[in-house]
């Protein structure tokens, strides 16, 4: 089969100037405020986000958290009240009208909707050809062939001449993905793409997404389904219009979003040089540390001669045993060798209150504490 999608492996993408990484999406202080009779309502409260090329990113959040609004900002469907949105290196809300943005969108990103949004009067093949017509991409006679190949890619070669009403919902969504890839855009944005599908169909759709990511496409997907977030490179949580620190969400995934957000807001960043002592044995513990970058060694004794009980990496945490059980530090924690360690420092009182309000987190932490104590005793 002829290659119909351009292949852009992450490594081949030249890094963005100064950043060292090539970002597909950069948002700076994105604010969105809606006005209605009841007054003003801030849906997005200054979102700063970067998504690298070739990443498969999921965005999750409760209903009304602002996840779809954020997606609308990325796709250029809605205007931010303030802030800057750079997609594929283009500032899409600066010097660009609605109509120009539509044209830009046709060429540079594909959108997959929850309700598929295929045009009911066009066959699947025609639906896939439509973006090529609007973007005026590829020779007119080349378009049907390309559309057929895209439908083959999503397993719809036999359904090409059918109207959307004549195929299953899973097939409709597959066709919608084929349509989104019609102009071979580097970015695909999906809003609850599996929200309306049975699990078998949903699985197929995610397989297609994974296939696309393998080919270097960037995919940003809003979803409610936790089974899908596990299959993405990154999971971004949004709560009340603000992003939750990914270290917080990864370290304490069972917390309620509002607690995660509270921690995100209250936690302070601290950096420790390689080998630097973070926690001394016998010392009182006041904070919980969430490891953002680097690794730490947990040791039985203070000083250099102590045995390393455990090595904690990114998204691990320490200090919870003492905070939950009370008393002094039962082990020493020191920054690993090689590179500095960055931690998020959460106030112990806040941590205890939050754990108290989140029984499942308390239960999970209890098991972790138990395991770590057992490990300590055995050593």
């Amino acid at each position, binding site marked *: 089969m002829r290659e119909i999608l351009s292949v852009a492996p992450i490594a081949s993408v030249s890094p963005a100037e100064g950043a060292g990484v090539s970002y597909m999406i950069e948002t700076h202080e994105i604010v969105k405020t809606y006005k209605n009779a009841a007054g003003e309502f801030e849906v997005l409260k200054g979102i700063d986000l970067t998504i690298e090329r070739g990443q498969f990113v999921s965005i999750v959040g409760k209903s009304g958290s602002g996840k779809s609004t954020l997606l609308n900002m990325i796709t250029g469907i809605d205007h931010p009240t303030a802030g800057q949105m750079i997609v594929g290196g283009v500032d899409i809300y600066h010097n660009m009208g609605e109509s120009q943005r539509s044209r830009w969108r046709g060429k540079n990103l594909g959108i997959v909707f929850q309700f598929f949004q295929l045009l009911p*009067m066009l*066959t699947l093949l025609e639906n896939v050809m439509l973006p090529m017509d609007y973007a005026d991409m590829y020779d007119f006679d080349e378009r049907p062939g390309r559309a057929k190949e895209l439908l083959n890619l999503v397993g719809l070669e036999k359904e090409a001449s059918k109207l959307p009403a004549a195929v299953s919902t899973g097939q409709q969504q597959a066709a919608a993905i084929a349509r989104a890839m019609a102009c071979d855009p580097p970015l695909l944005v999906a809003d609850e793409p599996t929200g309306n599908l049975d699990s078998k169909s949903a699985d197929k759709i995610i397989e297609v997404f994974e296939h696309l990511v393998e080919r270097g496409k960037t995919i940003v997907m809003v979803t409610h389904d936790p089974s899908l977030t596990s299959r993405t490179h990154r999971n971004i949580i949004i709560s009340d219009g603000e992003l939750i620190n990914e270290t917080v969400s990864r370290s304490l995934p069972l917390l309620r979003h509002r607690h995660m957000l509270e921690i995100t807001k209250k936690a302070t960043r601290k950096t420790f040089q390689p080998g630097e002592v973070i926690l001394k044995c016998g010392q009182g513990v006041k904070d919980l540390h969430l490891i953002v970058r680097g690794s730490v060694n947990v040791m039985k004794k203070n000083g250099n001669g102590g045995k390393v009980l455990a090595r904690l990496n990114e998204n691990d945490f320490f200090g919870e045993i003492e905070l939950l059980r009370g008393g002094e530090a039962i082990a020493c924690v020191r920054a690993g060798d090689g590179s500095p360690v960055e931690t998020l420092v959460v106030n112990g009182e806040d941590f205890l209150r939050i754990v108290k309000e989140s029984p499942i987190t308390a239960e999970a932490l209890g098991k972790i504490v138990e395991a770590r104590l057992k490990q300590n005793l055995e050593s």
Partner: protein
Amino acid sequence: MTIRPRWRKVIHDLFDNKARTLLVVFSIAVGVFSIGVIAGAFVIIANDMSESYAANVPANIELRMVDFDDATLESVQNYHGIEEAEGRRVFSIRARVQGSTKWTVLELAAFDDFEDNQVNLLMPIEGKAIPGKREVVLERDALNRVHADVGDVLEFQLPDGSIKTMPVVGVVQDTAMGAGDFLASPYAYIDQNTLQFLQESPTYNRVYATVSENGDDIEYVRALGAELKTDLEKGGAYVIRSRFAETHLHPLATTVNAILGILLALGILIVFLSSSLIANTLSALLQQHTRHIGVIKLIGGRSRQVLAMYLVLIMSFGILALAIAVPLGGQGAYGLAVFVASELNFNVLGYRIIPLALIIQILVGLLVPLIAGLAPVIGGARVTVVEAISGEAARDEMSRQGSGKKRGVSRWEWIQTRFTILLAKRGIHIPRPFVISLRNTFRRRSRLLLTLFTLTMGGAIFIAVFNVRVTLHDYIGAISHYFVADVSLDFEVPYRLHEMEQAVMQVPGVVRVEGWQFVSGELLDPEGNALENLNIFAPPAESELIVPILVKGRWIQPDDVRKFAISEAAYKYYPNLAPGDFVKVNVLGKEETWEVVGIFKFVDREGMLAYAPYEYISQTTNLANQAYMFRIVTDRHTRSYQDMKAEELDAFLRERGYKLHNAEAGSASLDIAVESLDILVTFLLIMAALTAIVGSMGLTGTMGMNVLERTREIGITRAIGADDRAVMRTVIAEGVVIGMISFGLAIILSIPFTYMLSTIVSMAVFETPIEVHFTWMGYAIWLGLVLALSAVASIVPARNAATMTIREVLAYE
């Protein structure tokens, strides 16, 4: 007082979406306005024309006689059955505004006593209504023909060539004299004391009389007139021609009736068109309200309550439409009536509310929306909660898991897609945005049908009007073959053919000359009673200056004796007339029996016409080789050249002492007749424009509703890369596709419409059916117009579609 929530919702629905309310109200108002204009104008014209005509006391009997005196007039005044009788002297005279070079023939009527005017009353318009000695008052119509104004001085050319001047002191309206005669010269009025100044005899030559009873019984009037005429002639008077009329029947009543008939048909049509517009708009509104209905039912509302709510909503739309359209319709009716009245020289009795029109408007304004909206309202009220709250969007795409039913693909959708696939297999790929336009066109088929009905009717009428116009003009063109001569010369005295030929051939440009005779007579019934005046023209039988449109029989021949070809007007009295039949006529005061050799078409309104050979008539008039009338052929035939040659011949002949009465371009009288036709054509064009407007409004409404319903789809196209132009192109293309389909249908429908309208108009104007002609012009103009209209009708909805933000239409959260 607190209003129940459901009625509060009705009030809210009424004012919530102002654009939608305006569209519905406007759809209703168009029909109400149109029917108001038409019904009002119908009543005003039908009533006021006869009333204003009768108010001027038109003469029932008009006798054109050889000069007579007061004694004869007195005998008429005292005749049994005569109410009033007035004597006047009426004569033709050439006049022009001082300083102008263009002469116009006026009919100058001298009144004995303006103060005591009892018959054919003059209505003052401007200045003095009663001229003093050596002053002239013009009839309204003459004002335009002479291009004079009150205060101007007119020059009158007397038979001896001398010029007299008189000031124009006033303008009057005379609805009776000359009414109904498009070819009549315009009238002007002088005092009898001015006659001598114009070298005219101070006697009368016309009698205008009213009957004391049965003024609207033409048979009675005719019988009394015939009796009067016989008795006058017994007393030594000589009646040249007689004319009879009913008191309340305007001479143009048949034309006006045709106009009113067309108006009525148009009114009914517009109500139909408007109701289709209303049905479309209301069904779209109900569709938008399906969710509301679902919620109402979900919380316990019953179908009956929903039905009542929406019926009240529709009634409210109707009331709003009435508030707008009733006053406007009243003004429109009056305006249209005034227009028709001014064109046909009668007066309307002033602005007033026409109860009949008001009742019809209220019925149309309230009932038509109710009837048109009933089906969608009942359908809406019956919708189940599940159907209602799942909404159409969900039904489209969630068919399987939502309702458990598969919506499937309709046969029509299948055919459409198959067709496109078939084309694609043959290498013909239609751009997808255009495929969307094409398939969208057929998605709401009942709406499409109603829109097509409106637009097709508008188009068919529009095209038909142009065909009728050409038909009329072609007929006039055919009639012009009765007027082939370039210049017509009428003399006061007869001249020898040879002498006149020698004289006029000296004028450069004159190619040929023919002498014609003319005798005035009457067509009689088998008992010898006068039926109607008969003008018998007598050209040489072999003349090439007349090409008749023969319906039956043959044209005249040189050896015909007491034989003539007669116009179709004779069918009025002899419906079965055929060549070879004999009819009684009164020629030169003698009752004779003549044989009809042929029957030809002419403008029957111009009276009954017959042609007999010069060879025979010149013998009966004892004027062999002589003639009063000469027809001249020049080397060029344009109207301006004819006018120039008429002027030259006029000067040339008068200089040489010939007693010339009048010289005018051969087609002059024809042009006046054509001008009068333009009134009708203008009227028909107004009608075409009205239907076109209603049609385009229908299309605008449809496109507006289509766009409104497809906002989601438009949002999708924007989301996948359609810019403003692409969105607009798709919407406009849909409008144009509808326009083109309607054009195709209008082409077909225009054929019966052309025949129907031509028949109505030709019967009204010519009193004879005429051959129908078709012109590409109406088709071409309508094609251009329908393309422009459909594009314009789609532009506003398309712009709205293009400016919607995608977030609005896709409504994510």
